């Protein structure tokens, strides 16, 4: 394995430092307590510091002798569309009801593929809506209203 400066290593280290650091800052806002009675902040503070330390070590090693991994392309369209679809589902399931939420989520997700044709997407979304209504609401008796309050029904 060839070893040299590695962008993925530095990025991974940075993510660990960032998240660990955020938890450390947050933990300082809670009571730390004593060793006998540790407060709610003590354990996250310890683990957060460990994550920061490990992140620094990974990033540091990545600058000198990192692991050579090809990062590869990022499917920006898929990332954006899938995140949007999932957030949409969470936000509207109570408000629009099961059927419209599922239909829009399914259509959005289908569009994540760069190769899909609109007609195919609509057909797939329709099929998935019917299938999931049958499986989850009819079959598994999920207690989610089919049509929600936003539709005025």
């Amino acid at each position, binding site marked *: 394995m060839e070893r040299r400066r590695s962008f993925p290593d530095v990025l*991974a280290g940075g993510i660990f430092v960032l998240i660990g650091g955020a938890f450390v800052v947050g933990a300082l806002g809670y*009571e730390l307590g004593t*060793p006998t009675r540790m407060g709610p902040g003590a354990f996250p503070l310890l683990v957060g510091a460990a994550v920061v330390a490990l992140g620094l070590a990974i990033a540091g090693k990545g600058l000198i002798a990192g692991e050579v991994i090809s*990062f590869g392309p990022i499917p920006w369209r898929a990332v954006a569309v899938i995140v949007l679809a999932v957030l949409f589902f969470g*936000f509207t399931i109570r408000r629009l009801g099961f059927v419209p939420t599922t239909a829009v989520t399914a259509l959005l997700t289908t569009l*994540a593929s*760069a*190769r899909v044709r609109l007609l195919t997407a609509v057909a797939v979304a329709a099929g998935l809506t019917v299938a999931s209504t049958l499986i989850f609401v009819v079959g*598994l008796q*999920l207690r989610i209203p089919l049509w929600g309050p936003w539709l005025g029904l």
Partner: protein
Amino acid sequence: MELLDNLALGFSTALLVQNVLYCFVGVLLGTAVGVLPGIGPTATVAMLLPITFSFEPVTALIMLAGIYYGAQYGGSTTAILINLPGESSAAVTALDGHEMARQGRAGPALAAAAIGSFVAGTVATVALAAAAPPLASVALKFGPADYFSLVLFGLIVSIALARGTALKALAMIALGVLLGTVGQDIYTGTPRFVFEQRELYGGIDFVSVAVGLFGVAEILRNLENEQTRTVIVSKVTNLWPTREDRRRIVAPILRGTGLGAALGVLPGGGHVLASFTSYAVEKRISKRPQEFGRGAIEGVAGPESANNAAAQTSFIPLLTLGLPAHPVMALMIGAFIVHGITPGPNVINDEPALFWGLIASMWIGNVLLLLLNLPLIGLWVRMLRIPYQVLFPMIILFAAIGTYSLNFNAYDVYAIAFFGILGYVLIKCGCEPAPLLLGFVLGPLLEENLRRALIISRGDPSVFVTRPISAALLALALAALVVAVLPTIRRRRAVVFAEEE
């Protein structure tokens, strides 16, 4: 014979009509999803988990176990027929299994895998029934300090077997532990890291973490290089192995079963190690090593048996210590907790019907698997033809609906998106997601026992090294850490995993 009494209790529970029925449904669903290309057992179990929550605990856990076996067998089918293993342990099966399929011998390869899995499952179930009670009684002597060290040991050992550098695996575990602290503090009730959102008081749901890390992140990776996959699935004919085949698979199946049953107990991926070891052993002792990689039936039978035996014995640390040996077991812990049962040494005494029923159902699951898979192989082959453009929206939609239906909490759904992106970026940087999930599930246990041990010892941290069990476990953890970091061993790990690429 206490063992027989216990097994009788187990079978009387597991053979109840509804339990057999749901075990069957579980195996069927597990195989159906597991056979889909690119979806391994962890993703399958994570996706189907919410379905089981509406049943009684015994039925739900039996169904879940059924899903797990089905998913594993489905993964092997995909590996053999189209060379797309859903997870690393099936990668070994693909080496010779797919080669056999290309020579028109897919039938015997599938049959060898099914028969091997069945034999291994039967033997390992007995091993589990025999080994669990004594281990559970030892575990009852554990104090909080011992438990803390045990959990730490389990987490550290899991990095020794993970892919990628030890440093990154360690960081992933710590990150998982850290994310596990979100929500109300167990001792004081103080809400931590919740941004004043009441929905986060219960913490982040582990199903969201699992679905995001294993489902969404995997889909994003598959969408990087979209190409029309031309799947050439050959017709499966002549399912039954020839007399020569049957003679050749007996010994590999038995050796694989022994290896798998022993290695499956190890935390953090014993089943992967088991399949690789079994393949290496068969290749070494074979009279025809040149046939390996060119369609040797021993190379399918051995690893498949090892894999299945390990899947069974990985329930031992879960049921006796409450420690998950791999991500699927972490999901099982979550399922236990949803049903109000704390997995650990008490289950065997408090819920004997559940404990022994689960063990008996493992064997029933294996029988169903054999009865189901060989006749239905035509159906599974057809599942392989589902285009990805239909498949991935279905996975995401079902994951969102399933996760939402757990608690009717929109934040659980938002968490999927968060962990999907986090997992995707970290995987691209060479960090494996499994240690994060293990850390996330075990983190609260680690914190609880650390704080309890320190309360008992009045703040004296030396309790961890003065109690013999705890000291021994910490020494083992340290040894495991050294082994994981040592360069020579790292090189050997690279060799083991190089065959997988």
